[in-house]
Structures are given as structure tokens and as C-alpha cells.
């Protein structure tokens, strides 16, 4: 992929990346920093991308790693197994953005990618290197916690 092609792809993907980072990190400033970092790292590593057709998957993975790094610096996540029995009630009481932020990463990642960034379940599974069934199950659980009733993004 040439730099010009990279520029075109980033132009198309930029808002999606920002949405993803914003919901991951909860702040406009952090999200912009994470997108800056991810785009820069992708630019200097462009030659390593062997299959340009998977650019958005590759780019999103870089972004998610940047978001994870930022989160590690800032706070600890609650593992899925540690969610209290009253988790449904607690998430329901929070504003949606806050509720998404507080989801364990196993649930937050597919929620952000599928419901907010607009990736299909197949694309979400590829980005997260998970099975489609696993992603679908986690989406259902997260939607239940968030009290979201959304139609699936079309394949």
C-alpha cells in the first residue's frame, strides 16, 4: 500500500477510529491522542501490511492496542467473572456512555466495534481474533446488561 492509498483509507476510516477510541477511553482528548498514536504507528509500519484488503482490520487492531495501553496507565478493569449478580441493575442505572466504559473488555470491545463503529459480526470477530459465535454471545450479554435493543448490523 502506498502512502497515498494509506491517506485515502485513513480519510474513510478516521471517524470510525475516533468513535471506537472515544467509547473505549471516555474522553475526547484521550480518544484523539489514541487515534493520533495509532495512525502514526500504522504509517511508519505500512510496509509490514501484507494484505491491503485487511487494512481496516489491521488499523483497528492497532487502535485497540493503543486504547488498551492508555487504559493500563489509567485504571484497572473488572474481569467478566467478577461482575456482581446485580450487574444488570448497576449498568442500567448508568448513562449509556459510562455503562459502555465500565464493561469488561471482553464485552466492551465487541459492543464498541459492532454497535458503535459499525463493523459486522464477521468483521468484529476478525479484528478481535475471536470466533463469530463467541462475538455474538458476548454481544447478546452486553446488550442485556446495557438494556440495548438494537438490530444487528447487516452482513
Amino acid at each position: 500500500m502506498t502512502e497515498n492509498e494509506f491517506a485515502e483509507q485513513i480519510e474513510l476510516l478516521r471517524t470510525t477510529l475516533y468513535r471506537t477510541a472515544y467509547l473505549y477511553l471516555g474522553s475526547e482528548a484521550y480518544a484523539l491522542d489514541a487515534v493520533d498514536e495509532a495512525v502514526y504507528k500504522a504509517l511508519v509500519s505500512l510496509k509490514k501490511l501484507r494484505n491491503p484488503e485487511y487494512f481496516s482490520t489491521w488499523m483497528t487492531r492497532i487502535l485497540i492496542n493503543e486504547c488498551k495501553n492508555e487504559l493500563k496507565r489509567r485504571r484497572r478493569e473488572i474481569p467478566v467473572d467478577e461482575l456482581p449478580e446485580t450487574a444488570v441493575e448497576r449498568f442500567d442505572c448508568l448513562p449509556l456512555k459510562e455503562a459502555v466504559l465500565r464493561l469488561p473488555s471482553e464485552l466492551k470491545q465487541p459492543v464498541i466495534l459492532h454497535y458503535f463503529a459499525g463493523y459486522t459480526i464477521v468483521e468484529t470477530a476478525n479484528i478481535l481474533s475471536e470466533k463469530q459465535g463467541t462475538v455474538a454471545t458476548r454481544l447478546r450479554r452486553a446488550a442485556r446488561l446495557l438494556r440495548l435493543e438494537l438490530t444487528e448490523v447487516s452482513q
Partner: protein
Amino acid sequence: MNRNEEYNELMQKLDSPPLKLDFTLERARARKSALKKRRKTSKAVFIPLGTLAAMFALFVALVNFSEPFAEACSEIPALSRLAEAVSFYSSLAAAVQNDYVQEIGQEQTKNGVTAKIEYVIADQKQLHILYSLKSDEYSDMDGRVELSNAPGYFSILSSYHNDIPDGELRRVVVDYDESSDMPDNLDIVLTALAMNDEELSSISNEVASFDFHLEFDPTLTAEGETVEVGQTFELDGQTLTLEKAEIYPTHTRLIFSESTKNTAWLKSLDYYMEDENGNRYSPASGVSSTGSENGYSMTTYYVESPYFADSEKLTLFITGARWLNKGEETVRVDLASGTAEGLPDGVELSQVNRTDTGYELIFVAEREFGNSHVFGFSAVRFDAEGKNNSFNGIGYDTGESDRDTQCFYIDCEPCDELWLVLNHSSSTNFDTPIKVTIR
């Protein structure tokens, strides 16, 4: 408002991202261009990831920190050039903003090359020399700075700047250790190097050599401030003490000591510093850390300086650490069988190849993409307790997203075994930074 209405409202908000997002690619391109100017190269591809990571964080801080500074200098052409040259180093940018810079203006021309020592920014422990090279005959020039008969113990750090345009400022740093201070004057030898176009190789030829005598203004060579800290804390089950912080205009040094009961040597830290106003100071570029006398530990860490910020409170945040287990400092490589003893978990010796001058050792390690800390070796020994020798070159490849490959090139006669000194045995990232109050 029900949950789905909340969702629609949030999506509408996210459809109107901030204007700054529109210039993401431009910022990335600018950073890439700056990185190329500062990258050191060896036989293969060399990326000191710790330095890069610091520079990334520094760049982000400086974009927010130096905008008014850059605007203030934009109407003055000479200062704009200097401002641009130091814009990636927040301590130096603050120094320039506070008129803490010495204009030297010494120029010489030889063999079609004009060299000019333009500015220095100095304190008792570091000297930053900003110079330029111009020539109508040579392109892709670079400079090498050496000191003549200079007292004290110091190191000189100079990145290769082959693609800095003629006449633009280049930077070299002279860093003095704890036992030595910057003298009142220095004799330097600046050698101009030019790429050999016919060979299109990475070999640079010396085309001219210049001798300069520099006298420094004592009012602009600050002694700095020492903060006695004496804070002892636990990190990964090891005990460290932040003994003191030395705050200079060009940088701050954080000096640690280790408990003798520790089971591992401290090799590196991830960290930043903050003051009471929320200003963040990133690890310094160039010199990032220095070692202790035992040869394994790195106990002095450099960070950008709050010298001009009038900060009353300073807090250190440690976000990661790397350790080298005592008694497991080296890896023995059996060159005949192609095996290695003592490698960290997840690292394997992939190949041993004979080269014209010695050996190539290829290691593969599992790694999360974007993680800036990977295994590596700092030196090679030809017997178990022998002296440390440098590698002839180090290659680094992230071709596969989940694995790292590193190649180490060693010049030596044919032999049966080698010992490689590990960079570290283990690495930890802290979910919650460890906070240490400096003052």
C-alpha cells in the same frame, strides 16, 4: 429518555468529531518526517523502542505545550528556526522561551563545506550544541562532534541526520556524569560527513574537519536544584529508594538506589512526572537512563525538566519496569548445536549462521503488537566472566504481528560458545501507576 434514544443521541454526537481529527494524518506525517531525521541506523534496522516511546509521548505533550511558544516565535525568523529545532524537546523549548540560550555564531568554511556553531543550551550537566552544515558540493550531509582534551567524564549523543536540509539546525548532546561538571569552555572538533552517492551505501565519507573553541556564559550555565527525596517503595517485590531529583534547565535526573536484598537488578522504568498544574514531563529523549557501578542496574533516569515551570509539587508515576534476575544475567549460546541456555520464557534461538566476520544469531519472541518493550541483549562476552563487547549490528523485524525477530551480529574468530548479556528477564506494566512524591 430510554436506552435506545440514548444510543441514537450518542451516535449523533460521535458523527461530529472534533476538528482536530481532520489533521490526524498531517500530524502523523510530520512525526514520521521528524523520526527519520533522528533515527540511528546500524547494520540492519535499529529502533531503540524505549527512546521512541519517550519521543512519542514527548511529541504529544509538546503539541499541546508549545503552540503558544511557536506562535510567539513565528514572527522572528531566526528564533523560529531555533524554536523549530527544539520543538520536540520540551525542556529545550522552555529554555528558548525563557531566553536561556547562548548564541555562538562561529562559522568556518573548508573543502566546500560551511560549518556553523549557532547556539548552545547548557547547564552544569548537559550541553546541547545546535549547529548547521551547508555545501554546494555535497548532499546528505551529517556531522560528528568530538571534544578535544576535555576534562571530566561525559558521553556524546548525536543522531544521524542525513536528510536534514542544508543549513537547518542539527543537535548534539554532551552529557556529564555525577562526578563531573560542564567546564567554562570547550574545544570541539566538528567533522562533516557526506554520503557516497556512487555507492548508494550507508557509508559516509569525511569531507571536512573544523576546530571550534567555545566559551560559555556562566549566567546561562545553571547549577540546577537538588531535591532530597529519600522515598523508599516496593516495585514488583523489589525495594527501591528515590534518593534525589536533580533539576536542571535541560533535563531532570531521578537517582535511585536498590536494596541489597533485591533478587533482581533494575534495568529500565516506564515513567512520567507531573506537577500540581497537571503539566506532564516525559522521559527525556537522547539520554534516558544511566547505569550503576555493578554494570547491570540502571539507576538514574532522565526526564524533561520543570525548571522554568516554577512547580512546587512534583510526583513521579511509574507505569512499568524491567528486571534482570540476579545470577541469570547471561545466556550461553552453543554455536555448534545452535542451542541457548537461560533464555527468558517465550524467547527461542531460531538460527545460528556463520558470516564472513563472525556469527549471526537470530532470536524469535512472542510479543503483543505495539508493546514497546521486548527482550534483547546488551553485550556479548567470549567467556563467561569476560568483558562486555558490543554487537557489530542488531536487526529488528515486526513482520508478524504477534512475534518479534531480532538478529545479533558478532565479529569474532570461530568459536564454540558465546555469552550474551540479557537486557532483562522480566517486564511488568502496572495497571495503576506507582506514585512517588518528589516534593
